[in-house]
């Protein structure tokens, strides 16, 4: 069985300040982990993924995430928020079976000027 918990349903940051979105997972197997972003009225776009290579994963738009097995976490960070980062973010876990993905509840990010 697998599950994922996004610890914050809503995060508000000022433009230019760091962003931290927290994600904890549970998986019976060595998981694959993903972060997706959904802008208003858009589909989901892949930000980055972890699939057992380097534990620090760099993604698009300056985002990165660190896989910590001991803490079962996969937190997403960005050093400096931009107005365009305002969106919904989803942490996703997969046990690598074809088509088996578990989505977190999502974190809404608001960026203020």
């Amino acid at each position, binding site marked *: 069985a697998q599950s994922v918990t996004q610890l914050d349903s809503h995060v508000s940051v000022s433009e230019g300040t760091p962003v931290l979105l927290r994600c904890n997972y549970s998986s019976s197997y060595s998981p694959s982990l993903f972060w997706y972003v959904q802008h208003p009225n*858009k*589909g989901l776009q892949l930000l980055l993924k972890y*699939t057992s290579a380097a534990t620090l994963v760099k993604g698009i738009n300056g985002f990165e995430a660190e896989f910590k097995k001991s803490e079962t976490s996969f937190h997403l960070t960005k050093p400096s928020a931009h107005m365009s980062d305002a969106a919904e973010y989803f942490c996703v876990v*997969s046990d690598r079976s074809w*088509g088996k*993905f578990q*989505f977190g509840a999502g974190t809404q990010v608001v960026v203020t000027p």
Partner: protein
Amino acid sequence: SAVISQKPSRDICQRGTSLTIQCQVDSQVTMMFWYRQQPGQSLTLIATANQGSEATYESGFVIDKFPISRPNLTFSTLTVSNMSPEDSSIYLCSVQRNTGELFFGEGSRLTVL
């Protein structure tokens, strides 16, 4: 990446009617997935559509309510039947690449009055 086109992008429907959503992928894929995203919620898998066989439905979803077609390796349709306001959601088509991640269409935003 994959280019996934969905139609319609949005629609407003009357209670009791049915709507068919189309999903076209730019390359052949074995499995296509249909997700539902209710307002303010995360994604829930409705079913997996395999070419040449019946779709596999997740718990809580039935073929009579959400019939799916998969006539070839690049196309699928999802019908939402006998709609009620509770069916107002975003319906998303997705595919999984050999690299492991899911790719999504832009979604079909359905409002039922």
